[in-house]
């Protein structure tokens, strides 16, 4: 009898305990208990001030956040540094993710689905984000990053230097419908020949390492790194051979593009043209020389524009996933997204209006339409692949064979396919 009572008391206590736990309110997060960290590849003072301003605004209404830190990492080794942090158990809470890495990060389940937070936040307007811009970051009922920068590559140029060299102004060539890679190479050569130490064209983010950026050139020649399904290498195609022969000739025959290991700085004023994105051109208005901007030249096969994209994502390995997702949603809401337009072309449709871009950025309305609005509508985002880390190292080490004067271009491109085809398959 005694045992029966004891059992009843025990059962009752257990039920009461479960009920008590069940009705407990969610544990409140202590004030100042969370520090968020976001990695980025920019150390531009304007970019940092923009993010810091948004973070300060957020902290006012979120006392649980002690600090939001922004960690600038080197662009050339950004993914390597980020993945080393992740692999070492020191993942940041939020990170900028390059378009080329989107598929691999998703395949490894590294990006948190933030669609629930976006949808449940009043006024977030998820449907404002252009579907094409979300492509790399979206799955059914899931959004893995906010594409805060959908930035077409363009040719920014030093109009004074080009004029002094006697070459035709790129904008004039474009207006006549003669803005082609062949004519761009002529302008570059004229600038190089004009004065010792000049270069006609540079491409700072390529730097003989991030080869996928060369899509900005090879797409005009009708070339691609691999087929649409990512299963067959196409580096050995005739189109790629034409593109690389053209580029190689600029480096080693015309000497109008800096060879490997040679430094050049467009903003120093001795480079005629620079293949960059709007986000990297913010300091142009402070230059003492006249500058201009035109879209990528037409190639012999296509008038192809290339777009670089950056997503802002919460990492699944973050220790503060909920807080990080809440901050991401705040930092990318329509009001804050509008602040990015000064540096980063937006993927929210109202912010793609050339008038809005012209008001916020260094571009005038005509340039904003030509470079950003038309660029995004015509362009394609740079190459990505779920196995990009294995592929890009093989491509980089094999393509090194191209960067010498007597390179066997066809053989090198065949070697690239020999190397990466087993990975693609």
């Amino acid at each position, binding site marked *: 009898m005694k045992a029966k009572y004891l059992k009843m008391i025990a059962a009752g206590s257990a039920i009461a305990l479960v009920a008590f736990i069940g009705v407990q309110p969610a544990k409140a997060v202590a004030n100042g208990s969370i520090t968020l960290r976001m990695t980025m590849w920019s150390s531009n003072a304007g970019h940092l001030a923009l993010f810091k301003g948004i973070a300060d605004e957020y902290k006012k209404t979120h006392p649980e956040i002690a600090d939001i830190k922004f960690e600038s990492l080197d662009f050339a080794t950004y993914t390597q540094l980020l993945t080393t942090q992740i692999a070492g158990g020191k993942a940041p809470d939020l990170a900028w993710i390059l378009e080329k890495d989107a598929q691999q990060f998703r395949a490894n389940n590294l990006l948190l689905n933030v669609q629930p937070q976006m949808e449940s936040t009043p006024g977030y307007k998820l449907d404002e984000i252009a579907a094409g811009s979300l492509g790399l970051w979206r799955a059914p009922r899931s959004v893995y990053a906010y594409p805060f920068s959908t930035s077409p590559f363009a040719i920014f140029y030093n109009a004074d230097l080009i004029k002094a060299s006697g070459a035709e102004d790129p904008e004039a060539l474009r207006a006549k419908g003669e803005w082609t890679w062949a004519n761009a190479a002529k302008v570059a050569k004229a600038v190089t020949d004009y004065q010792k130490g000049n270069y006609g064209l540079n491409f700072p983010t390529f730097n003989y390492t991030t080869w996928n950026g060369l899509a900005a050139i090879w797409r005009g020649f009708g070339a691609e790194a691999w087929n649409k399904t990512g299963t067959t290498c196409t580096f050995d195609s005739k189109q790629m051979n034409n593109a690389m022969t053209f580029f190689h000739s600029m480096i080693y025959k015309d000497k109008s593009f800096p060879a490997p290991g040679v430094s050049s700085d467009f903003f120093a004023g001795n480079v005629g043209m620079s293949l960059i994105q709007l986000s990297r051109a913010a300091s142009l208005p402070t230059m003492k020389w006249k500058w201009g901007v035109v879209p990528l030249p037409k190639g012999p096969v296509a008038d192809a524009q290339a777009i670089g994209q950056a997503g802002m994502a919460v990492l699944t390995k973050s220790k503060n996933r909920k807080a990080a997702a809440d901050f991401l949603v705040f930092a990318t809401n329509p009001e804050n997204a509008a602040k990015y337009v000064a540096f980063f072309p937006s993927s929210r449709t109202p912010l793609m209006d050339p008038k809005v871009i012209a008001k916020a950025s260094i571009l005038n309305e005509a340039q904003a339409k030509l470079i950003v609005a038309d660029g995004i509508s015509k362009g394609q985002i740079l190459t990505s692949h779920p196995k990009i880390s294995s592929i890009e190292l093989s491509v980089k*080490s094999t393509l090194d064979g191209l960067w010498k004067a007597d390179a066997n271009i066809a053989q090198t491109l065949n070697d690239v396919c020999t190397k990466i085809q087993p990975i693609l398959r």
Partner: protein
Amino acid sequence: MAAPVLLGFIFLVLYPVLSVIRDSFTSYNPLSGDAAYIGADNYTRLVQDETAIEVAKNTLIFACILVPVNMALALFLAVLLNMHFKGRTTFRAIFFSPVIVSTVAWTIVWKYILQDDGPINYFLGLAGVDGPNWLRDNPWPMMSVVMVQVFKNLGMNMIFFLAALQGVPEEMYESSEIDGANRWQQFKKITLPFISPTILLVAILTIAGAFQVFAQVLLLTGGGPGLSTTVLSYYIFINAFQIFDLGYASALAVCLFVFVMGLTVAQWQIRTRWVFREV
């Protein structure tokens, strides 16, 4: 008394080494956290991996150039700086100073110096010489990595040799002079035998260090052009943190560990044949 040391050894040496051996039998992907036991597959793959074989050759070339050049230069400098002349302390400090500079800072400065349009080629140009692209045109990238590493650690080996040279009894030289020995004979018959224990120590440290070179490769050449400067430790890093194949990287690390350990043991075993006072 030995407990703290033993604990340190267990947690900082033994546990990591055993973890690496364990991981080498898995397909551990540090990015996703996925891992599965795959037996000796990583070791089978290693034998068939043409890149790993090329990288192993690069590592041997690197060590075979670095070790003799470093030791010969360090000994030469030590002998010079052991002589009595004005300002020798300053020279000692100058040659030792790279040792205390951070490897990263040292390498970044050299990367700038070795650029195609850097100071070396500028001065060569003044002399009418068209210098190569030191970090791109083979075989100069490997030579550049070796040279940067040699000058980084030269001072340390020089100090070891200097200390040893100062321990050679002066009376040995005096009596040999009476016997009519010339400078070379003195060096060969007195100096070298007396400093041979230090030569053994320096050889063990330099050889082990040669197989661990990493930062110089990462920062100077990134292993390129092609694979020409990719050495084993850098290849391990690439597999672990760029391709995220930590299992395979662990198998490579185990092989490198066994090889360096074997080399050190071999040096220790043959010491009795050439090291003075060793029996």
